[in-house]
């Protein structure tokens, strides 16, 4: 039970960190200054969520391990785990692509987080519930911001509509995984599938306003939640972990 709770917390943290890392690639390169600030803000929120979750996981792990083990910290969890140990969904690690892909991915993910954190607020583990409650305010903003962009680009110009369609085509296959429970979720009695109908309803409504089609049933890629990732994750971690791994054991 305790191990599953740790794994689940790491899964939530990894989602937030990897998407935060991806979004941060826009910092200084956004399409217009106001949106450069907005996407950086979302990145900061996600990294903040990741930190709270890693800190909580570290606390649990240290308590379980007893004192003879080296202390686990938010940074050892982020910087010293390998590709196969990360449990983020495939969706979060996909390249940032163009602005259409970035806002669509954010929309898919924020919609998911929005329903997830609402459920988690009621969860028996009060620490996770508290993190969910705090994060929900941020996620509500991310959802509003990303919905508006999906609509604006979907119903903007021919080019922006074409790019949104391409983004849907590219990313839809990674949305199924959000709702497939990993073993640690099953053991904790958490069923992400229970949110799928709400998620689909929200996505359909926004797509309709954006003049976009919800794709027909297509094959969904999975594996990230259990550590079987796309080839992108290795490169993300190579960059993210470079300094820590080059100079191990230092304070920064």
């Amino acid at each position, binding site marked *: 039970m305790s191990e599953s709770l740790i794994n689940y917390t790491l899964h939530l943290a990894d989602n937030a960190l990897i998407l935060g890392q991806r979004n941060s690639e826009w*910092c200084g390169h*956004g399409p217009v200054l106001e949106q*450069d*600030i907005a996407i950086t803000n979302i990145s*900061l929120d996600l990294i903040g969520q990741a930190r709270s979750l890693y800190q909580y996981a570290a606390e649990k792990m240290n308590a379980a391990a007893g004192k003879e083990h080296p202390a686990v910290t938010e940074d050892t969890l982020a*910087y010293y785990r390998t590709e196969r140990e990360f449990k983020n969904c495939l969706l979060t690690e996909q390249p940032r692509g163009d602005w259409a892909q970035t806002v669509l991915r954010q929309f898919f993910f924020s919609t998911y987080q929005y329903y997830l954190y609402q459920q988690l607020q009621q969860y028996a583990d009060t620490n996770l519930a508290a993190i969910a409650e705090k994060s929900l305010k941020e996620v509500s903003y991310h959802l509003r911001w990303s919905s508006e962009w999906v609509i604006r*680009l979907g119903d903007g110009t021919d080019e922006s509509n074409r790019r949104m369609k391409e983004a849907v085509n590219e990313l839809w296959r990674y949305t199924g995984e959000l709702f497939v429970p990993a073993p640690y979720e099953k053991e904790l009695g958490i069923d992400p599938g229970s949110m799928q109908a709400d998620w689909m309803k929200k996505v359909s409504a926004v797509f309709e306003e954006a003049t976009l089609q919800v794709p027909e049933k297509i094959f969904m890629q999975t594996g990230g939640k259990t550590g079987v990732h796309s080839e992108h994750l290795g490169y993300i971690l190579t960059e993210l972990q*470079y*300094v820590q791994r080059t100079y191990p054991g230092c304070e920064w």
Partner: protein
Amino acid sequence: MSVQDFEKIFQDKIDNETKIEPKDWMPDAYRKTNLRQISQHAHSEIVGMLPEGNWISRAPSLKRKAILLAKVQDEAGHGLYLYSAAETLGMSRQEMINDLHSGKAKYSSIFNYPTLTWADIGAVGWLVDGAAIMNQVMLTRTSYGPYARAMVRICKEESFHQRQGFESLLVLSRGSKEQRDMCQDAINRWWWPALMMFGPRDTESTNSDQSMKWKIKRKSNDELRQQFVDMIAEQIKILGMKLPDDKLKWNEERRHYDFGEINWDEFWQVVKGNGPCNKQRLDARRKAWEEGEWVREAAVAYAEKKKLKVAAA
């Protein structure tokens, strides 16, 4: 009233420390000088996001990553206020950005140097933001109202950044040998370019007299540079590091630090576009702007559609 009368009223206001506001009469040269300076300052904030942004993905801890992201985001915010302040002088943000991209408008040369190691991020915060603050504190009292007010807010954030930069170097200076070497190396590379940020020597500086008379500037380049050297020469003692200048020495008589000569050839080369990253910085800005064009167009098209729908309803 004649132009001479207007000029007298204008100069009286300045002499009496009354701020000049956008709708006030002002000499054309005053408008142009402020526009050039404020837009250049705005561009510096935006281009300045690039060397620091270079380390966001590789920041060595989650805390440092969050601090750096927030810092670079602050620079974007500074760019926004400054573009708004400059717009009050009659040029649109779009026009200013075009001038940046065409090379007509300048930005601070300091951002044409590369950030090679993590320690550079601390050194940029401490030395580059530190040098910028000297200038900006003076500018909180500049005669053009919108610029002075933008500076008040910017200064608060910049001094926070400078402390963060220093603190980040302090951790390195107390760390492993590799960390201490990295720290010293970054200081060695950023020290002279930071001194160049204050511009040419007073004897070489054009426009300075007029800018002083109009209270756009209140201190000369050399005065500000000296103030900076005096501050950093003390702060570096806490780091236990050295500034790369054999001539740096306290002068009891002047009550200031003496320091060596800046390499003015390098200064002018970087101004002319031959710094190590001039090309990359401008290319990155142009690329972001060009790749964002379809996004901006879509946003405008959507807003217009929405307006029509509202009008029809």
